[in-house]
């Protein structure tokens, strides 16, 4: 009977494709929007992810994220280094600056000063050039997405000279970095250079990046730093989470994406519900005949469940594949750089599809179950 159910469904091509479209579109909307949402808010932690060596981030107690930070006195570095369990500690500077491009355009950039000796604070991988290029005078490394912003005409970034806050800077490398939430151009330079590039105030060091001694946990060392220095210290994961939370709490992004995801769900319920009800109504005489012949209500429910399951499975697969293709198609766009589909999102979409089909199937099947077998004689 289940084979007959499938043939009944696929035999009505118009409604079958309508159901696939409804589920597929709904899945695409939910999966794609949630994927963009998750990847976008994770960029609130891009500054942390781009400095993977740092196990503990130390900052002024009012600092909240890599981008919302308050500078500390340079003495903070020594205080951190003196805490038991700290293996190493280096200064880290993050500040805003302006660049005049060769074409004469103005571009706001983030200047990140990494440790002069170890270059801790630089992204792990380079797209072009070597990390050591930063040891050259006036040298900066630009993030790869930044090149598309500063050199949108396709011009060569390496070797280009920039006017950075009235100072000379030469791009000598391109870092493979996770873009920031605003996709702002990021220029990495040595800490001592960065102090020259950004306007001078008394306190300029925004973070101290620290590594913990073997056998120590980052949480314990961070707690010890806070206790002994009065500064705020968070582990890599805690600070990344804080960056993400900041985006969630201070922007309308969750609401907007939430609305879109909800609309995807509603569209799914509407299209699938309507089409499924029409499909069952069109076949009500056949179902009535089956009931008269001797097919039980339980078997009818199974038949409808198989029909719902089939459109759900194919439609869901189409929606997820659509999301993958979307990300592939736009992979070259800097905005989507590094976007991935977390494994939880397809599961959430699957749950949404199951709920959509359960709701619509339940509504649609009532008319079939209520149909008296005797109705076929009327």
């Amino acid at each position, binding site marked *: *009977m289940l*084979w*007959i159910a499938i*043939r*009944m469904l*696929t*035999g*009505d091509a118009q409604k079958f494709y309508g159901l696939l479209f409804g589920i597929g579109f709904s899945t695409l909307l939910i999966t794609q929007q949630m994927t963009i949402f998750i990847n976008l808010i994770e960029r609130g932690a891009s500054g942390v992810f781009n400095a993977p060596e740092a196990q503990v981030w130390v900052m002024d107690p009012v600092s909240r994220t890599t981008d919302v930070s308050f500078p500390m006195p340079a003495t903070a570095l020594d205080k951190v280094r003196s805490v038991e369990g700290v293996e190493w500690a280096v200064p880290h500077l993050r500040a805003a600056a302006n660049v005049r491009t060769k074409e004469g355009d103005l571009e706001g950039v983030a200047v990140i000063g990494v440790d002069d000796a170890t270059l801790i604070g630089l992204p792990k991988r380079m797209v072009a050039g070597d990390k050591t290029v930063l040891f050259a005078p006036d040298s900066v490394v630009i993030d790869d997405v930044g090149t598309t912003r500063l050199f949108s005409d396709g011009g060569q970034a390496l070797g280009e000279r920039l006017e950075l806050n009235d100072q000379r800077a030469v791009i000598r490398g391109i870092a493979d970095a996770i873009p920031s939430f605003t996709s702002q151009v990021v220029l990495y330079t040595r800490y001592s250079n960065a102090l020259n590039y950004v306007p001078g105030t008394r306190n300029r060091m925004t973070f101290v990046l620290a590594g913990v001694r073997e056998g120590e946990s980052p949480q314990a060392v961070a707690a010890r730093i806070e206790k002994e220095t009065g500064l705020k210290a968070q582990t890599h994961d805690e600070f990344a989470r804080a960056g993400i939370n900041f985006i969630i709490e201070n922007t309308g992004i969750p609401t907007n994406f939430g609305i879109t995801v909800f609309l995807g769900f509603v569209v799914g319920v509407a299209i699938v519900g309507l089409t499924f009800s029409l499909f069952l109504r069109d*076949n009500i*005489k*056949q179902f*009535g*005949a*089956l*009931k*008269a*012949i*001797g*097919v*039980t209500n339980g*078997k009818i429910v199974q038949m409808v469940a198989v029909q719902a399951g089939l459109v759900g499975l194919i439609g869901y697969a189409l929606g997820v594949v659509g999301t993958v293709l979307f990300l592939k198609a736009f992979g070259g766009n800097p905005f989507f750089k590094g976007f991935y589909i977390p494994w939880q999102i397809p599961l959430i979409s699957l749950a949404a599809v199951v709920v959509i089909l359960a709701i619509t199937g339940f509504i649609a099947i009532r008319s079939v179950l209520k149909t*008296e*077998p*005797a109705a*076929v*004689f*009327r």
Partner: protein
Amino acid sequence: MNAAGSIVGTRAIGGCDPEAAICARGIVRDFEAGQSTIRVLHGIDCDIRPGEMTYIVGESGSGKTTLISIMCGILYPTAGEVRVFGTDIYKLSDSDLVRFRLHNIGFIFQQYNLIPSIDAAANAAVPLIAQGVPREEARERAKVLLERLNIGDQADKLPRQLSGGQQQRVAIARALVHAPRLVVCDEPTAALDASSGRRVMDLLREVAIAPDRACIIVTHDNRIFDLADRIIALEDGRITHDGTAMPDDH
């Protein structure tokens, strides 16, 4: 007994004939219509014998569809009892009643109600598939019957590719494929012209009538009355005639 062989009243009293395929006693059926209740059947008693083609005839609204629905176990009576081959079908549980229909009754519907997206052989095989017979085996058995009904070459066609008469034959095959002991036909000739209607009835007689099988046909098509072994006429929910032919005044 009157000129037409009517035996009105004589079979209505007493217990069931042990040979009867269907024994209905005191069948009453009421339908709710808003605030009021309409009685469609008024205490019908009748027996249906195997080996006969029995017509139930009457005007629209006479109660013939309701009676046939009750006699084949798809509509509960308000009162009365129905025994089909000795089984008091309305004393069965719902699931047992459904199973009873699946194994003992074949249906031919006025509008055929074939499943449009499966071919003729699969449509004819539906009762077997519902019984759990493997699909290919069920198809093969259905094809044998379609051959007997002279549409074996149409077995792989979808219902929409068949003429009305051919669809009717597929419906007949579906009603007989599982060798039921009772075959119920609802207006089998309503959509056919006179000659096609007679051909279908001849065919039905050829394949559906057997010594151990009863065949009931609900119709108001007087063009085929002469093909009946027995005619039960209903009027306003009561049997007004039960005989081998229709009386002249009907």
